[in-house]
């Protein structure tokens, strides 16, 4: 039986890592990830978590140590943000290329310069194509649940890929929320010990990380992509098991009052909470507005998206990341790509908001919906607009 309690979301994630019985934690501090790793260090020091905590000298080494540890068959975890994630960049591709089921929480933060410790999604979007399974949480409960699920998904022998759970810096990581912390017994039932597909073992010596010549590189990359695309089925399976055991339901795309909505707001992460309030207020005024939130970002749930938005007239796609000189936010681009070949598709208006910790207020969503309606009638003027810019 779980315990209902109030808890800082960072601490809840540490609790989830402990309940998942992580064996290796290799991490380097960076705001706003620090509370997670400080709490894990405390747990190890107090004997609550029986793991090796490697206090590495950089994020590049954090991911390198996770790679080494996962390759010998230890359940490995790290957490980081922004500059730290960027420093890991090279290793992210290697972790997925070597098919090592590492779990990482990214506490999303804006990329420097100017240096900013506050939240947006530009850090993870730069790692979009790194071959990791990528999830976005909205609430503390979800962050807790996804962290436990991440190990099960990653380690499933049909998948054997690393997983990242994204949580918004400060607006999610540093808030205290009510949530259910599941018992060790129940988590153990859900998550069996890690059985690696490949392992560095003197009794069965294997070579990991060999040179891939042009005759083979393409095939190996195709294999990796097939594994990532097909992880979708396993993710759905894991969510089904999770619902059966713990009663909480998870889908690739979350919807709110979207059934009969003419205008759908699309967003990822904790800002969905504000968007939901805005939707309710607009509904009270008789506006047919709904919300969709992307939880599963990689593999991209093309089918779910197409089904969810089929009946809408327009989508207001809100990104907390700016693709410089490009067509708009990365999530907006993906939506457009997913829908372009359909005969009937909603109009898509792109918005950039919430950069570097700028709050997205209820009023901002009113503006976004108004703008979307206007653009729907008058036609698209430009690729996207930035919301809340002081001119």
């Amino acid at each position, binding site marked *: 039986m779980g315990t209902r309690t109030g808890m800082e979301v960072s601490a809840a994630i540490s609790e989830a890592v402990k309940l998942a019985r992580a064996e290796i934690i290799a991490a380097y501090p960076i705001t706003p990830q620090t509370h997670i790793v400080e709490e894990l260090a405390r747990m190890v020091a107090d004997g609550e978590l029986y793991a090796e905590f490697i206090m590495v000298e950089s994020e590049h080494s954090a991911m390198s140590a996770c790679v*080494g*540890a*996962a390759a010998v068959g230890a359940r490995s975890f790290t957490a980081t943000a922004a500059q730290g994630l960027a420093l890991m960049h090279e290793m992210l591709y290697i972790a997925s290329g070597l098919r090592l089921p590492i779990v990482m929480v990214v506490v999303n933060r804006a990329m420097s310069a100017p240096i900013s410790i506050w939240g947006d999604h530009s850090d993870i979007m730069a790692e979009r194509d790194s071959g990791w399974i990528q999830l976005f949480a909205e609430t503390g409960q979800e962050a807790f649940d996804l962290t436990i699920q991440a190990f099960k998904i990653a380690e499933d022998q049909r998948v054997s890929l690393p997983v990242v759970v994204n949580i918004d810096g400060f607006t999610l990581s540093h808030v205290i929320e009510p949530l259910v912390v599941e018992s060790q017994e129940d988590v153990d039932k859900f998550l069996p010990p890690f059985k690696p597909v490949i392992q560095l073992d003197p009794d069965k010596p294997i070579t990991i990380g060999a040179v891939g010549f042009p005759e083979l590189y393409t095939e190996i990359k195709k294999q990796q992509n097939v594994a990532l695309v097909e992880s979708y089925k396993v993710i759905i399976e894991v969510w089904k098991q999770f619902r059966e055991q713990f009663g909480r339901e998870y889908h690739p795309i979350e919807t709110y009052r979207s059934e009969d909505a003419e205008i759908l707001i699309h967003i990822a992460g904790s800002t969905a909470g504000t968007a939901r309030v805005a939707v309710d207020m607009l509904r009270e005024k008789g506006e047919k507005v709904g919300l969709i939130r992307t939880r599963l970002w990689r593999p991209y749930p093309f089918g779910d998206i197409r089904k969810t938005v089929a009946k809408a007239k327009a989508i207001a796609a809100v990104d907390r990341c700016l693709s410089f000189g490009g067509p708009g936010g990365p999530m907006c681009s993906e939506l457009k790509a997913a829908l372009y070949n359909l005969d009937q598709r909603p109009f898509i208006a792109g918005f950039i908001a919430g950069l570097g910790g700028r709050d997205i207020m209820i009023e901002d969503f009113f503006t976004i919906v108004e703008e979307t309606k206007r653009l729907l009638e008058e036609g698209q003027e430009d690729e996207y607009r930035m919301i809340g810019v002081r001119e």
Partner: protein
Amino acid sequence: MPEEKQNPDFIPRLISPREFFAEGNRGCQGCGEALAIRQFLKAAGPDTIVCSATGCVEIISSPYPETAWRIPWIHVAFENAAAVASGVEAGIKILKKHGRYHDRKINVIALAGDGGTADIGIQAFSGALERRHNFTYICTDNEAYMNTGIQRSSATPYGASTTTSPAGKESIGQTTPKKDMPMIAAAHDIPYVATCCPSYPMDLLAKAARAFNTEGPAYLHVLSPCPTGWRHESHLTIEIGRLAVETGVFPLYEIIDGKLKMSVVMKKRKPVSEYIKHQGRFRHLRPDEIEEIQKNVDEKYERLLHRAELDQSLEN
């Protein structure tokens, strides 16, 4: 020697005949790095995991689907062999505690070239030593980035011509002295540091064995002649390694728990020119420039002898 006659298999009895680094790897003829690996793996034995950095070794040993490694081996990237080994070592430690790994001693080795150690990998290197992982870091030093085409590293010796420190009208080649990695390793107060060279196999094997049996981090700095990069004839690899030691260019020593001990003291050192003359990378040097190098070698060697004397006197 009469003893040798009685025991024609003397050396094979001292050295394991098992080869853990396969014949037929893609190293150049006379590759000092390949030879060094062959030797230290004999001291390591089968219960060994090697974490390799990107570089010649990784390229020549692992062209998928072939491999030269008869022990478990992982290559991850260029600058992080020490960090990967940290994860391997800590992973084994916790898995053993949980009863999920062999309960016997496993040698964890991080293996990198001079570039992967002295330049891009020095941060991960320093971090892993400082954290006191129980592993051995082996640097096969061929004094340049050979894998990418003989570019200079901070371990390239003064005066050597490389593709990015070319000797020319305005330049002697490498203009800076060689970074002293063994001393940098020793500055971490680790229990064991040694220099060795595959031209002295018994010395290398003994030092490797000692490193593997050390509790905590150990560092082996292996001078590895490279016919391709040093531009010497491939049959001269062993000879050139010997000359490096005999001239005092590359002194053999150990630092055990902070105390330096010379493995061999060259009372009458051969002139540095003997070492230099076989190598194309030094061909452009004028006699006065060689004289300057000789002076630096002498000074460094004397300083090393002084320190060894001092350390050994403290011992007594």
